[in-house]
């Protein structure tokens, strides 16, 4: 079958790619656009490592078809830092040692930013339930939750 041409915006830049109709957004990002910061942990929407924003909504890119993003705006981990400046969540993850192997980190950061945009002053429980769709096998979550709460405080200006 002929490959489909998809035009979209990724991290503010216009981009386009050719894809199969059954190809996922995750595969298009990684294999067609070479944006490998978004990770595949399961391919079935269970681990959250492939989390991206699609028109401002948090989605698993492994459950989104690439052809669905025609004309839409995708935000990935590669667009999180502004120039040389890390996002406060990125800084806090480093300060709190909230990552060990780091394979889940892009997904956690995208998901956590989505939470803080919606809920700038979350409780610990809110953070834990919001991030329950993101698996981390290294940290036991403690330092991730601390980093998100600390970033939220900093982004509110304390």
């Amino acid at each position: 079958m002929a490959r489909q041409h998809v035009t979209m915006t990724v991290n503010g830049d216009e981009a386009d790619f050719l894809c199969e109709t059954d190809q996922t957004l995750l595969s298009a990002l990684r294999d067609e656009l070479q944006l490998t910061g978004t990770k595949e942990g399961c391919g079935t929407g269970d681990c959250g490592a492939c989390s991206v924003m699609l028109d401002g909504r948090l989605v698993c890119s492994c459950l989104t078809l690439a052809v669905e993003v025609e004309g839409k705006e995708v935000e990935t981990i590669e667009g999180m830092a502004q120039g040389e400046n890390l996002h406060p969540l990125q800084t806090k993850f480093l300060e709190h040692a909230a990552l060990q192997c780091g394979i889940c980190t892009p997904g956690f950061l995208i998901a956590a930013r989505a939470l803080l945009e919606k809920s700038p002053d979350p409780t610990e429980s809110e953070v834990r339930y919001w991030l329950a769709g993101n698996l981390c096998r290294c940290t036991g979550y403690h330092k991730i939750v601390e980093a998100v709460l600390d970033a939220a405080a900093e982004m509110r200006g304390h």
Partner: protein
Amino acid sequence: MSVSLSYEDKALNVIGTRPIRPDGVDRVTGRARFGADINLPGQIYGRVLRSPHAHAHIKSIDISKAAALPGVKAIVTSDDFDEMPTEYIAVGEMIVNFRDLTRNVIAREKVLYDGHPVVAVAATSDAIARRAVKLIDVEYEILPHVIDVVKAMAPDAPLLHEDQFTQGVEPTPEKPSNIAKRMMFEIGNLDAGFAKADHVVERVYTTKPVHQGYIEPHSSIASYSEDGTVELWTATQGHFVIRAQCARLLNMEISKIKVIATELGGGFGGKNNVYLEPLVIVLSKKCNRPVKMTMSREEEFRATGPGAGGRILVKIGCTKDGKITAADFQIDLQAGAYAGAPLPQATMSAFTRYDIENVRVVGHDVTVNRPKVAAYRAPGAPNAAFGVEGAIDELARAISLDPVDFRLKNAAKEGSKTYYGVTFGPIGFVKTLERVKAHPHYSAPLGPNQGRGVGTGFWFNIGFDTTTSLNVNEDGTITLTIGTVEVAGGGRASLAMMVAEEFGVDAGKVHVSTGDTSQLGFNFVTAGSRGTFAGGIVAVMASRQAIETLKERAAMTWDVAADEVVWEDGHARPASANVGDFEPLSIGDIAKVSNKTGGPISGHAELNVQGAGPGFGAQIVDVEVDRETGRVQVIRHTVIQDAGKAIHPAYVEGQFQGGAVQGIGWALNEEYIYGEDGRLQNPGFLDYRVPVASDVPHIDTEIVEVPNPNHPYGVRGVGEVPIVPPTPAIANAIHDAIGVRFYDLPMSPPKVLKAMKDNGTA
């Protein structure tokens, strides 16, 4: 050159602080390249056809339709691999039976588990490779299978290996069996010991195999050249071991294989051995193109890992004042399809926390129709501890003694001799238990339906072959090339900190990178809690060697003898006023003129590191049991553990917390569900159910520091121990909450609910 590697108690500037890890930014920006992030020009894609049966003869394989599919470039079966005899060959400190390893990479005469690789295909796209796999016809003769360890030990059980006769039994049995090996340690007189006991507890426990659950699937990419060399990028904990295994399996010279370890997205023991690597190399060789292969999560569950589960029999006797008089233990561990369950570790860790006069421990390594087990964080030890620590809690309650006091009465200490012959040097078990008693958590009030339990854990820790190369750059910065892998977090940071401490510079002046197999001598897998310990020793050796050179260069500049120069606070200084009045020279001062004083300045070290310091830990866990659903929620959890010395305390805490939560998963949720047909029914994260953030509380930590005398900074490994205490601690806590004691993992809601209904407390 001789270096003193023993512990020195001295003032520290860098060690013990919490700098941001040097390889951190790449991980929060998506820049770090893990296995599946590596791509090569002209690469094609591999896929594996796997057995749908738990046990079957392969009658025939017809690849003709797949080979005819446009875009298919290479197909590999066991015909492409040499037959290997049963022969136990050392790969570093790992003993490998290559007869089994080649069969686990690709099945030969039989398939032995659902998911066993049968054929590998490479094609110009992943979609074509998937289609090709479906076009392969394999004719199987299905055989009876066995999944359960106890059933596999029965004399009439379906037999996996017709040529497997139990080792460790005299005389060797004449009939083959699924029991690959028996192992035993015994000291004292068991009967006499039990005769002195006032109370005896004798119980049977079962633990389930659990997957390591790293989020990054296995991924490998090989580029084989017509000149007979190959480059292999792979997600592994031990690229030198991968190289050695590939060399033997593929009958290649070691020097012709270069393995580059990618950033590792979690391993926990599950990435120490080859799976995809030999397949991508052979595929690449056959089609002259780089071949990339990445496992799906379903393949991970069906065909890699798990950590072993098994059956544990425990009998412990004690006097009425709490002195253990005798302890008997048997563990029957599931090896999976090929022998190799962690028997020594399980048996040798069973009672090692306690000083007991009369002990017998027995272990069996049992083959079943499941994937071959792999190491998983303190392999074998959590199984053993689930039984032993549960029995100890029962004994303490039987004599109305506080369970921590009970352990203190029997705790191993410096000078205690283990039943396997090792006498302990300074260890931190007693101190750890005292800190448990003193911790506010231990005496905090509990609410309704809540209970508290304690469990303890031990791990040997290891050293072994480790190499490193250190260069003082022209501007005075330092580059350390290591052969261990950043397995979890903080490894590079900790090594940079130890080097910085040696040189008297900021940690930021030291850059640590992982070398490929062509750049350094052999390194054992980064496992067993050795990265910071053994890697630290060679990093310190290399640093001291380079510092000696820096002093010589300063001496040359000042025209004094080398022994008239000392290295202090990052500078060469005259050893005394008598030497002369010279301005101190910084590392940068010396480095920038090194070409005028003899050339570049470096240090390196290659050593089979010995002297690992045993690790001991304890955890306090509070649970709340939902009487309507049977769900157990961990509501407070404290980890207290001896780290020897925490180089970067945040990453030591991270090891404690991560291990504890893996233990919570093992205790409460994680389980493989096999159907009657021997097929795995829950090969995905959703149904396998590792803990998520909302399942667990904050994990409090307390680092005990009893220095390891055999490390310059006192380091002990810390990664393994934290997974050991949770399963018994949670079982003990559930008993405290609802009066029901569980002997079978996981303690999942249906089981807990049923138990409460049975005892009328639901």
